[in-house]
C-alpha cells in the first residue's frame, strides 16, 4: 500500500475527508448526515493518513490522544443535557437559539452541541482502534 501515489495523495485526501466530515456533521439536522456519519468519515480520514504517513505522523497531527477526544465527546454530550435544567425542562430537552445574519438563518442549539459530542466520540473511538492496530503492526 505504500506506493508513491498513495503517500502523496493521502494527506490531501485525509484533509478533504475531515473537512467534509465536519460539513456532514453540521448539515445533519436537515439533510442526510449528522454526528455519527460525520464521525465515521473523519475517522476514515485519520486511518488513511495513519496508513500512508505512519502512525507517529498521525498522532503528531492530532496533538491529543484520540481516546481523549472520545471522552470529551461523551462529556459534552452529557453536558449539553444540563442546559435544559436551567430552563426547567427534563434532562436533554433541546433548546434553540435562532439568529438571522444577513438573510441566513443560523441556528444554535443544544442538539447541535450533543451531535458534536457524538461526532467527537465516534472519531475518537474509531481512530483509537485503527491507529493502535496500525501502531502495533509497525512495532513488530
Amino acid at each position: 500500500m505504500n506506493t508513491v501515489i498513495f503517500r502523496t495523495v493521502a494527506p490531501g485526501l485525509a484533509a478533504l475527508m475531515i473537512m467534509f466530515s465536519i460539513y456532514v456533521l453540521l448539515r445533519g439536522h436537515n439533510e442526510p448526515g449528522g454526528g455519527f456519519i460525520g464521525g465515521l468519515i473523519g475517522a476514515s480520514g485519520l486511518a488513511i493518513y495513519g496508513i500512508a504517513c505512519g502512525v507517529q505522523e498521525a498522532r503528531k497531527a492530532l496533538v491529543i490522544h484520540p481516546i481523549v477526544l472520545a471522552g470529551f465527546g461523551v462529556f459534552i454530550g452529557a453536558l449539553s443535557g444540563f442546559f435544559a435544567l436551567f430552563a426547567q425542562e427534563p434532562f436533554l430537552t433541546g433548546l434553540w437559539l435562532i439568529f438571522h445574519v444577513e438573510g441566513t438563518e443560523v441556528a444554535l442549539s443544544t442538539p447541535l452541541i450533543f451531535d458534536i459530542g457524538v461526532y467527537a466520540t465516534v472519531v475518537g473511538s474509531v481512530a483509537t482502534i485503527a491507529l493502535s492496530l496500525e501502531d502495533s503492526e509497525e512495532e513488530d
Partner: protein
Amino acid sequence: MGPSLDFSIALIAIAPFVAALFAPWIKHFTGQLAGWILAIVPLSIFIMLLGFIEPVSGNNVVVAALPWIPSYGIEFSFFVDGLSLVFGLLISGIGTFIVIYSGGYLAGHPHHGRFFSYILMFMGSMLGLVLADNIFTLFVFWELTSITSFLLIGFDHSRQAARRAAIQALVVTGGGGLLLLAGLILLSTMTGQNSLTGLLATAGLAQSHGAYIIALLLVIGGAFAKSAQFPLHFWLPNAMEAPTPVSAFLHSATMVKAGVYLLARMNPVLGGTEPWFWILTLFGGVTLLLGGALAIRQTDLKQMLAYTTLGSLGLLVLLIGVGTKEAILGAILYLCAHSLFKGAMFMIAGTIDHGTGTRDITALGGLREKMPITFIAALLSVISMAGFPIALGFLAKEEMYLAMTMGLWPDLLFLAVLIVGNSLMMAVGLLIALKPFLGALKPTPYKPHEGSLSLYSGPVVLSVLGVIAGLFTGWINANVLNPTGASIYNQAVDASVYLGFPITEPKVWASIATWILGGVLFWKAEAVRGALRRAGNAIGWTFDIGFDATMFGLVRLADGVTRFLHHGKLEWYTLVMFVVLALTLYLPMLITGTAPSIPDFPILTFYEWGALLFAVIGLAAVLVAKTRLVAIVALGIQGFAVAVIFLLFGAPDLIWTQFMVETLSVVILALVMTRLHLDQRDHREPALALRDGVVSLAAATGFAFVLLSVLQTDLDLTLTRLFEATSAPVAHGRNIVNVILVDYRAVDTLGEISVVMAAGLAILALIRLRAKPARKPSTPRARRNA
C-alpha cells in the same frame, strides 16, 4: 406554614453538600480556624431545626416537595415530624462539636480539608435521610451515608487495615441498602404509596397483605446491616479504623442509628405483628448481650466503645420490637442519652489518644491531674451511661424497665437481658472513665497533656447536657417524647416521664440490680476479660473471619465462572453466539406456530437485479477466496452492494453509514489479521466447514424469516406520524433520522456513545496488553493447550 419555611427543609439537607464543596478552600485560607468556621454550617442547621419544635410539638407535619421523576411518582420531598426532628437535632447538634473537634484532632494532617468535605457530605446525607418523605429520596440518602462512611473509614487509605474496614463496611451496608430498596419497592407496590406520609396514612394495609413477610424481611435486612445487628455486626468494630471524630459521629451517634430510625419509622407500617416482635427482640437481645460481653473483652478504648455501641443498638432494636408505649418512650430517651454520652466518650477516647499516644487501657493510668477537664467530662458521661439518677440515661433506663415489668412472660426474659446488657455496658463505661485517670501515672509514648479548647469543648458540652437534661422532664415530655412517640406510634401519646425514685416499684429494683451487677463486673473486670478471651479462643471463629471466607469464595466463584465462559477460544465464542442467535430466532416461531408466508417472486428493475447480483458475487467470493485478505475485501463488496440497495429505496442516512462502516470494517479486519499473525489461508476440515456452514445458514434464514414476519405485520405508525408531525416545527430538523438520534432519543444516544467510548478504551487496553506477549507466539498457544 409559609412556603419559605417549607423550602428551608430541603435547604437543610443541601447546605452541608454546598459547604463540603468549599471546605478544602476554607481550610486552605483559614488554617487552624477552619473547624470553628465550618461548624457554623451545622450550628445554623441546628438553630433552624429548633424553630421547628413549636409547630411539630403541636402535631403539625411540615412537608416540602420538588418534582424529580414525576412519571414514576418519585419526588425530592422532605417532611419534619417528631422523629425526624429528634434525629435532625442530634445530627446537627453533635455534628457542630464534631466539626470543631476535627479541627483540633486532625490539625496538621495533609488531607485535613478533604476530611472536612467528607464529614460535611456525610452530615448532609444523614440529614437528608431522616428528613426524606419520598421513600426513594430516603433510599438515595441512605446509600449516600454508606458511601460517605466508606470514604471516612478509609480516610487513612495508605493503611491496609483501613482499606479493608472501609470495603467491609461498604459491602455490608451497601448490600443491606439493596435489600432495603427491594423492600421499599415492594411496599410501594403493596400499598400504592411512594412517601412515608402516605405509608403512615395507610398504616395497617401492609400488615394484612400477602407479601407482608417478604417486605418485612427485606426492610429489616437493610436496617440490621446499617445498625450492625447480629449477625451483621462485625463491620462496626472494624470501622474504628476511621479517625476518632468519625467514630464518634458516624459509628456511634448517627449513621448506625439510621437502621433504628428506619425501624422506628416503619413501626406503624410494618410493626405490631408476631414476626416483627420476635425478629426484632431476638436479634436485638442477642446483639445487646454480645456487644456487652465483647466490649469487656477489649483493651483498646475505641474497640470497647464500639462494642458497647453494638450493645446499645441491640437494646434500641429490642425496645422497638417490644413496641409498647413505655418501650417506645424508653427507646427515644435512650437514643438521645446514648448519642450524647457515646459521642462524648468517643471524643474523650480520642483526646486521650491524642494526648498520650496510646489507647490501650492497660497502659493508661493517673491522668486525672494531667487532663482534668477530660476527666470531668468522662465522669459526667459515665453517670448518664450507667444510668445514675438525674442523668438522661437514668430516665431512659427507668422507662425501659417500667416497660418490662408490666406482666406477660417474655417481659421477664427481656428484663433479664436488659439488666445483664446494661450492667455490662456500665462496667465498660466505668473502666473507660476511671481506669485511665486514677491510680499511678504510667509512662506513655507522648508526655500526657490536656487537649485544646476544640478537643474538650465537645465532650464537656455533650456530657453536661446528658446529665442535666434529666432535670427538665416537663419540657422533654411535651417537646420530645410526645411528638416523637406520636410519629413512631402513629397516634397521640401522652408521656409522663418524671424524675423520681419510688423505691416500691419493681423498675427501681431492676435499676439497683443493674448497678450492683455492673459494679461487680467492673471490680472483677480483669477476671471477666480473661475468661471471655479464653472462651473466644476456644471458639476460634468470628463473623469477621466468616466475612473474609465469603468474599474469598465469591471471588473464586467469579473466577470459575469467568474461566468457564471466557475460555479464550474465539472460534467457540462465535459458534455459541450464532447457535444461540438461531435458536432465539426460531424458537418463538416454533412455539407460537407463526411462520411467515413466503412472498411472491418480486418484480425488480434491471439495476435492482444488478445490485443483488453484486451482493451474491461478493458472498460467493468470500466462500471461494484463497486467502483471508481476499475474503475480507469480498465481504466488503457484499456490504457495498447492500448499501446500493438502500440507495435505490431512498434511505440516504443508512447508505452513508453502511458505506462508512463497510470501509472501516475492511480496514480494521485487515489490520487485525496482520496484527494477530493469522495465516494467509483459512484451513478448515470439511467436517468443520460443514458445521460452520449449517450454523450460518440457519442463523441467516432465521433472520430472513423474522424480516418477512415484520413486513407482514401491520406496522404501528403512531411514532412515525408523531415524528413527521413534530420533527420540523418543534425539533427544528427536517432529517428525522438525525432528530431521533440527537433529540427524541438523545438519552439512548448518550448511552450508545458511552458504549462506543468504552469499547475504544477496552480495545486500546487489550492491544497494549498484548503488545508484549505477542512477540513470543508460543505463549497463547501453550495456554490454549493447557
